[in-house]
């Protein structure tokens, strides 16, 4: 009885994901049929005037996300190493829950912090024309991706057998050498998973990004693009979906952007999952 119930619940959650995807396809596919592909992947996004070029939005999302991960990765791994390998037990007991709390801060609160404190700092500190830049968004996203990355990376370090550390130390390596030359490389695939999940978290984030990136749909292809405003896919959907006429070309294009976003996150999660499965098959470390 209970077994059947759990099975129904498990299957229905997969069913729901499929239904959502079917809905996305139903609303988004007409965009690929009515708008020529060259228009859809053009460089101009002026939906009010029939220019539905999504390229600035796609590149904007990629720029902000990759920068965020580049910022978060060293911080996340260093924190995970500190919490797992260096910190004394009592500090670990305090730090772990605090990191979990970071994940609980609502993104709109972070966005507010970004717009009032971070943006002026970026403008004055880096001399950019405005503080609402891709970089400001990346800083916030890095902060938001950190808790996920730290806890996954920490689990990966935790799974490295004690014998590895003992062997390293017995060979005469210092604790530092053991960590960087033995433990971290052994946990490498777990850290890759952490990065993937961080990317997944960052690319889907909407509110904070919409508040601090300036939402200018410019092509981020010049060298200074990181320090210029940018418009992401998520912010575009959030800002425009509420006002769009149901069934119009703009409406379908917004769903098409949703499909792209779905495909991106799906591929990233798939990549993360495949690194986990590879390890399982080799029977190695988790």
């Amino acid at each position, binding site marked *: 009885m209970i077994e059947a119930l759990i099975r129904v619940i498990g299957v229905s959650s997969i069913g729901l994901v499929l239904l959502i995807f079917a809905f996305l396809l139903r609303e988004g596919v007409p965009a690929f049929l009515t708008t020529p592909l060259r228009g859809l992947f053009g460089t101009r996004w002026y939906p009010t005037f029939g220019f539905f070029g999504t390229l600035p939005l796609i590149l904007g999302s990629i720029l902000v996300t990759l920068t965020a991960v580049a910022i978060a990765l060293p911080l996340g791994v260093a924190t995970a190493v500190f919490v797992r390998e260096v910190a004394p037990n009592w500090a670990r007991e305090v730090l772990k829950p605090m990191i979990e709390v970071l994940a609980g801060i609502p993104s709109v609160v972070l966005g507010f912090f970004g717009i009032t404190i971070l943006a002026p700092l970026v403008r004055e500190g880096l001399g950019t024309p405005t503080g609402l830049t891709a970089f400001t968004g990346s800083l916030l996203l890095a902060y938001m991706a950190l808790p996920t990355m730290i806890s996954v990376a920490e689990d990966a370090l935790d799974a490295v057998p004690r014998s590895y550390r003992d062997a390293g130390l017995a060979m005469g390596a210092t604790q530092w050498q053991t960590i960087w030359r033995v433990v971290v490389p052994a946990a490498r695939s777990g850290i890759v998973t952490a990065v993937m999940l961080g990317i997944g978290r960052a690319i889907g984030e909407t509110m904070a990004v919409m508040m601090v990136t300036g*939402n200018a749909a*410019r092509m981020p292809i010049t060298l200074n693009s990181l320090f210029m405003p940018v418009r992401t896919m998520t912010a575009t959907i959030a800002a425009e979906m*509420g006002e769009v006429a149901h069934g119009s070309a703009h409406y379908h294009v917004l769903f098409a952007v949703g499909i792209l976003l779905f495909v991106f996150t799906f591929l990233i999660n798939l990549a993360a999952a495949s690194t986990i499965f590879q390890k399982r098959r080799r029977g190695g470390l988790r």
Partner: protein
Amino acid sequence: MAFGVLIVLACLAAGCRSSSGSGEGGSGAVQVIEDKGSDTLVNLALAWAEAYTEIRPEVRISVTGGGSGTGIAAMINGTVDIANASRAMKPEEIAEAEANGITPVQFIVARDAIAVVVNPENPVSELTLQQISDLYTGKITNWRQLGGDDRPVVLLSRESNSGTYVYFLENVVRMGEKESNLLFSPNTLLMSSSEGISAEIRQNPNTIGYDGLGYVTPDQKVIAVAQSADGPYTLPSVATVNDGSYPISRPLYMYTAGQPAGEVEAYLDWVLTEGQALVLKLGFVPLE
């Protein structure tokens, strides 16, 4: 967007009174008028609703923002009685309404002037429409080109779904020319609320922005605008909008589904007559 969606039952005070049983009519039926749309109009619509329920406690008016498009869509779907709009309905919206069996009726309820604003530190205080257009299309990129400091220009605009955005594009960037296909520079920052614009104007001396006159706060510097380089340069005010000397102003609309009747008709009549006294207080321009 999200900032605009403040749902306020405007009749809190009045509603409490009638529920405490002082209504002499005794019929007890409270008529609710749903009023939704333009964020530009939302404060004015709220003030009207509050004042009206003072006089007619048996009528409740619920005012919601969300944007002109949202309000018109809701009117077409029949979920609201009145749609507020800062632009006229588009032909395709009218067609959609007629497909739904609805003939929208338009009322001009007030006028609005769009003010062009900069940071108070900016020495530039006068611009022609042509200069503003050149700024927003990205032809002018440094304030030095307009006699200001050597600073990059940061363009601020409302989101593309805002009625103010469309109005500004057609009448300022394209300078009212139907043939023109000029667009905002891709470097224009699109802000989802009036507050977003004023916050950035306040803290960044590089910025230029525009918004409804009713939303300009004292910490922004309003630019005097001229139709052409010969002047005269005019600051937006009630007087200059009404006599037509300020070049960037527009009507504000309310739409109903078909000719209004009953309480909705009475309310609109009041808005167009006694209600006009409130328009000034909210920074808009009353009808003559």
